[in-house]
């Protein structure tokens, strides 16, 4: 049994009482929309938490599993009438579950991998650069060289075969724009977000220190991220762990922000495209936490011949792909169904290309489009830009 010290320490223990039970969170919750039972939605879970605090219910394994049946997409927080930071609350409740020894088995496995290998996939530093196979000539000179711009690809983009086009495209873009950049190579470790999602708040600062120390040693000023969860962790969580604002020390940019800047500086030249209609899926963290919604659209529309059409739910109203915060590890089928729901929203647009800005989203959509048997091109924003660049600058 846990004493809910983590919740109390972070001033979150009163939040179930602050909940107005208005149901706004439940109506937008992707997990509730799949399960259709209140106890899977935020309002229902808060109600159970209240009962647990009052000794009327148990914080048991079954309930702990429900705490992990959440993609921390923040849609609930964004519509909460009483401004409860529900994502924060569930993260801390995960820490309580970890303390009480109630972690679901897949979550425990990810935690072990993080502690042992510094990534959530049991792959280790030796596999960190497999994405660069075949383009070593282009990549190797940039590994841990002193430069003002660093590219932090993150675990998914570097280690998962489906999305290794993303770092490869980023390298192409940087070289096209003559950016002097550096990569951490095999010394890059996970940003720590998955560790936090497993409820481990104690081990995460070590990873934070490793990454930030390396960046400092290389004289980096600007860090570009392919994964919104990574940049969010650097921007907000590292401040909490390390006591210093990393965002003040380094300039932290998402892919779209960085490309947007290169566009503004006129450093990218594009080939005319044959009338491509694209639709942009806003990753939850980018849109709701980081508030980056304009830049990716500007980048898409900057490419001649590529047009953006909006889905019904976009920007801050975006819907989750289901592949965030380890939901796909606890219940892969549910995660896939959530992605399928989003894919159906893509399918009713006239778009022939789905663009996103997150390797997790792209992986989720690759699987989901396959399962709903709908064919549409899918690219990360970096992949789209790299594909449309002129081979030779004029």
């Amino acid at each position, binding site marked *: 049994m846990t004493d809910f010290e983590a919740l109390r320490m972070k001033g979150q223990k*009163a939040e179930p*009482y*602050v*909940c*107005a*039970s*208005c*149901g*706004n969170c*439940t*109506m937008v919750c992707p997990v509730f929309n799949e399960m*259709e*039972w*209140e*106890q899977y*939605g935020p*309002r*229902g*879970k808060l*109600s*159970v938490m209240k*009962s647990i605090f009052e000794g*009327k*219910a148990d914080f048991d394994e*079954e*309930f702990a599993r429900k705490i992990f049946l959440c993609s921390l997409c923040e849609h609930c927080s964004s*519509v909460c*009438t*009483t*401004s409860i930071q529900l994502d924060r609350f569930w993260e801390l409740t995960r820490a309580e579950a970890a303390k009480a020894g109630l972690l679901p088995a897949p979550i425990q496995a990810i935690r072990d991998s993080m502690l042992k290998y510094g990534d959530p996939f049991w792959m280790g530093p030796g596999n960190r650069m497999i994405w660069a196979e075949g383009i070593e000539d282009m990549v190797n000179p940039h590994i841990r060289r002193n430069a003002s711009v660093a590219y932090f690809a993150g675990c998914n983009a570097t280690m998962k075969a489906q999305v290794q086009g993303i770092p490869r495209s980023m390298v192409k873009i940087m070289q096209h724009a003559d950016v002097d950049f550096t990569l951490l190579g095999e010394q890059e470790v996970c940003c720590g977000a998955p560790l936090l999602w497993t409820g481990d708040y104690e081990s995460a600062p070590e990873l934070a220190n490793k990454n930030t120390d390396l960046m400092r040693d290389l004289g980096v000023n600007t860090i570009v991220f392919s994964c919104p969860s990574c940049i969010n962790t650097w921007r907000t969580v590292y401040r909490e762990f390390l006591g210093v604002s990393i965002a003040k020390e380094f300039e932290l940019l998402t892919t779209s922000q960085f490309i947007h800047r290169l566009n503004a500086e006129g450093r990218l030249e594009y080939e005319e495209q044959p009338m491509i209609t694209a639709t942009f899926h806003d990753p939850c963290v980018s849109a709701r936490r980081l508030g980056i919604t304009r830049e990716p659209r500007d980048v898409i529309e900057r490419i001649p011949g590529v047009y953006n059409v909006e889905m019904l739910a976009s920007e801050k109203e975006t819907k989750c792909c289901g592949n965030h915060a380890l939901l796909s590890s606890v219940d892969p089928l549910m995660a896939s169904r959530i992605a399928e729901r989003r894919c159906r929203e893509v399918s009713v647009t006239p778009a022939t290309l789905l663009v996103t800005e997150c390797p997790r989203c792209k992986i989720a959509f690759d699987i989901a489009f396959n399962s709903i048997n709908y064919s549409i091109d899918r690219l990360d924003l970096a992949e789209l830009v790299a594909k449309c660049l002129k081979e030779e600058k004029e």
Partner: protein
Amino acid sequence: MVNLDSTEIQHIEDIVGADGVSTIRESCVAYENDVASLPSLTEQIIRKKFDLIAQPRTVESLRRLVLYANEKKMPLVPRGSGTSGWGGAIPAKAGICVNFNRMSTILHLDNFGLTVTVEGGIIYRELLMFLEKLGSTLPVYPSSATAATVGGFIASGGIGIGSAMFGEIADQILGLEVVLANGKIVRIGKLVLENDPLDENECSWLEENFPHDNLLEAVVATYGTIGFITKATLKIVPMLQLRPFACAFHDMETLMKAAILILEKAKPFNLRFLADNYTSKLKALIGYDSEMNEFILTGALMNTIYENDDSLEFIDIILKETGGIILSEERASYYWRERLFPLRIKRYGPSIVPSEVLIPLENLNEFYMEISSSIEWEKFAVEGTISKDGFTGFLAWVLDDERNKYSYLAGWYRPFEITSRAVRYGGKPYAIGLWNAKYSEDFFGKDLYYALRSLKQKVDPNNLMNPMKVFGGRVIPGRKTQAAGFIAGAIVFLIAALFGPPLLGLSWLTEFLMNPILPNFPIPVFILGSIGGGILGYIMAHLMTLNLAFSLALPFLRLMGRIWNK
């Protein structure tokens, strides 16, 4: 009480589908509340625990569930999203929660006839989004539209956003399909459907047993006590130009005068006010000195561009006459967006006890002043929605903290006090639900109330459909209530025995009471009488109705609350 056995659960699964049934405790807990947090002592008069949650998908499965519940004498409680605060969707006698989550389809849209037909479980937000894409909107929807269901709003009745132009929700309903408590499916009014297997609207049974002009009144605001709403045909209106406006006042009196004039001259779509004790608590207003601690009147016009321009000029003139300040368009838009989030105020509780009454708009200031002087200013926040019939929903959020059990319990007298004072100002409760059952007659009017009661007896003689709501009923006494009944009975007898005979000069009775009843049984009669009184009190606790329980408890709560505050 109910507690279902495995055969019964299996049978319900056969009716509803196994994936639409849950009996696990955690699941039931999630459906047992609405927006009001109840003091734990409430469980001493009601049994606030569901035994099973059922989510039927079809009208036929709902009908069969109702028939089975009748056969097994199981209470059924309908639930949309539980966004109200009057106890209408919470269990009072345990039983089955009928959740309409899976009956949420938009069935038919008639753009020429300006109607939309939906299933009862559809969320207003989804319906509004659907309609707005096609250039229409609903004339009236609740301020909880982000989560509330159509069936839920109709079953609880009342006013909402759009009522300043279109009146009550009851006025927006063209037809309903209802599964009555006796399992009959009836169609009331004009239900517009395409390819409908039932060609004609069938309501002959209801016509025979509810001799009333408007059959819809059997269902609207009766909280599913007569029947469950499965389909509704609602009016829709073209989405014309929407122009939010907002103005600030230094006092309620000028706000009220301006509101009366604006309602008459500008004919707004929506008109809402926020009192100073509401605006003073909102952190979002920090930095807006002309709004914080002030009285805000806000709303929106919905008409043609030219009409809206004229109306805005009217508002401008009215404000000049009354002394209000018009706020910028940006601030007006802010208040328009906030119309769907009245519960923001709960952040400052963290608990709230809602109290809403309908009072004549011309009495708003007097009523507000009286309530302000009787309830601690910092403890409550008032806002309201104004209807075209000259009534205003006066919504007083009483802020408290349920973690302080005794002071929270004591504070529960306030909403009842507000309601009883409203009646004196020509008002009535906004809705009945569970807590306002004693005002049912005032709320519906005598004729309608007795017609409804008679219908209830015919359609649901065992009082299984949402028991204790609207019509009250006997409480389910918990151990504390039973003990209190016993102690009260014993004390009453003791006092009567000790002081009654001497006062009446009946010395022989005093002697009889003080002596043992038998020589070999040395216990005086008055002690035995007290035990008898206690047993009588215990029986009374079981026979007590909800309304009586409130009548007995409220003076104590009021006294307790005042002592506590001092």
